[in-house]
C-alpha cells in the first residue's frame, strides 16, 4: 500500500494524539475521575477509527489479481471409429470439428468435439 508523505504525517500526528488520549483516559479511570476518562477514551478511539478509515480507503497500487484474467481451457478429442476420448490443454489453432492427431487405438483420426473452460473441482 503506497501512502503519500502528507497522509503519513497526518496518521502519525493523529496516532500520537490518540495514544496520549487513551493513556490519559486509563490514568483518569484509575484515579476514579470517570467523566474525564470517558472523554479521553472516546477521543482516542475516534482517532484510531479515523486512522483505520484512512488506511482502508487508500487505494492499493498493486492489483491483487490479473487485470485480464487467464482462463484454463481444455480441448476434448474423440475418435469417430473406436469412440476413444481424450482431454488435453487447449492450444491456438484448435477448433471444433477439426481433424486432429491420429487415434492411438485404431487407424482413425481424432476429431475435436469440445473446447471449454476446465471444470472447477467441486467443493466437497
Amino acid at each position, binding site marked *: 500500500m503506497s501512502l503519500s508523505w502528507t497522509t503519513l504525517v497526518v496518521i502519525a500526528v493523529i496516532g500520537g494524539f490518540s495514544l496520549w488520549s487513551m493513556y490519559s483516559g486509563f490514568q483518569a479511570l484509575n484515579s476514579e475521575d470517570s*467523566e474525564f476518562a470517558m*472523554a479521553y477514551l472516546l477521543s482516542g478511539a475516534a482517532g484510531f477509527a479515523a486512522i483505520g478509515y484512512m488506511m482502508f480507503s487508500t487505494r492499493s497500487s498493486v492489483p491483487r489479481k490479473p487485470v*485480464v*484474467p487467464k482462463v484454463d481451457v481444455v480441448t476434448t478429442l474423440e475418435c469417430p471409429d473406436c469412440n476413444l476420448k481424450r482431454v488435453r490443454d*487447449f492450444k491456438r489453432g484448435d477448433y*471444433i470439428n477439426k481433424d486432429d492427431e491420429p487415434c492411438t487405438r485404431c487407424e482413425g483420426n481424432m476429431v475435436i468435439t469440445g*473446447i*471449454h473452460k476446465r*471444470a472447477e473441482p467441486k467443493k466437497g
Partner: protein
Amino acid sequence: MFLQVAQLFGQDNTDIGMILQTLFSLSFVIYLFYAQRIQAMTMLRQIEGTLMKVKRIKDEGRRISIETVKEIGKPEADPTLLIDRFIEFFVVSPVSLDPAGIIGKLDHLLNMSDDTIKAEVKKMAPEASEAELNNLENLLGATHALNAYYKVIRHFYLLGKKTMNIYVIMQIHMVLPLIVREIEATSYAVQAFKDGIPIGDSVGPLVIAKMMRGHEWKDVAKDMVAAEVPYEGRKLILTKAKGPGGTVGKPGDAIENIINSVEGEKVKAVIMIDAAMKLEGETTGAIHEGIGAVIGGIGVEKYKIEEIANKYGLPLYGLAIRQDISQAIGPMVEELHKAADVAVETVKRIIVERTQEGDIVVVAGVGNTIGVGQ
C-alpha cells in the same frame, strides 16, 4: 459505558460537557449544510477507484491486441497507430424520425462498417488467414468496447468533479456495479478472441456443427454456410456462420436465401437456436423453448427472418440456451458445452413432434462461431 458517554453530552455545567455539546452542535450544523457535498465526495472517490481499475483493464486489452496483431499478422510497420485509430472508430445510426426504410439504411451502414473494419484489420495483419482476421476483428472489437466504457465513466466522473452536483454523480454511481460486471465480462472475452476459443455465444453454432458433422456444406450468404441432412424422413437444412473464425455472419440473409431457393412452399418450420441472458437464480445451460425469431443484434437480421416467415406463413420455433453476460462472451463453460448436446436432442424432438415426413425444416444456429468449424 454508553450511559456515561450520554451523560457527558447532557452536562453543561462542566468544561468537558460544554466542549462536547458545542462539538455536537457544530457537527449538526456542518452536516445540515454540507451533507450532500460530503456524500458527493465519497461517491466520487468510489468512482475514481473504479475508473482506475477500468483504465488498467483497458490498457491491458490494448496491449494484448497490439501483441496479438504483431504475432499473428506479422506486419512490416508497427500497427500501434492503426490500432489506436481503430479503437476510436464510430458508426452513426441513421435518423429515425421517418422510420420508413430504416432497416435498409441500417443494413447498408452495417455492411459498410463491416467492410471498412475488415480492410483496416487486413492492413494491420497482412499475414493473417481469414479465420485469424475474423478473430482479430473480434479482439479489437472487445478493446474498442473497453475503451468506450472507460471514456463514458471518465466523462461522468470529471463532470461530477467539475459541478460537485450529487445528481450528476449519482447517475454513474448508481449503475457502476452493473457496468463493472460488463467490463469484467469483456475482459474475459479478450483471451477468448485472442486464442480463438469458443465463447458462450457460440453455443448456437455449436449445436449446428454437431448436427452437420460429416455432411457436405456450402456457402449460402456472406459468412454463412448450410448443409442438408436427412432426419426421420425430413430434410433438414442446417445453417450457421462460417467458422472457425469469429463472426456472426448474416443469418437473416442465409435463411432468406435458403427458403427462396426451395420456393418456400415445402419449408414447414424454421427452428432457431441462440444464447440468451439468464435471470439471477436460473441455471446456466437451461434450455427454454419459445416462438419467434430468436436472434439478438440491432434488428436488421431479425427483420429479414420475420419477413420471410410471414411471407410463407412459416412457424418460427426458438430455443434459448441460458447464460449470464460473463459466460456469453467469455470462454465457453462446461455446462454450455453439455447443453449443446441436450439442445441437439431437443431440436430433434421438435422436428418429430411438429413436422411430417417429407417436410423441409430450416435449423439455424445463431451466434458467434469463433472456435467452431463445420
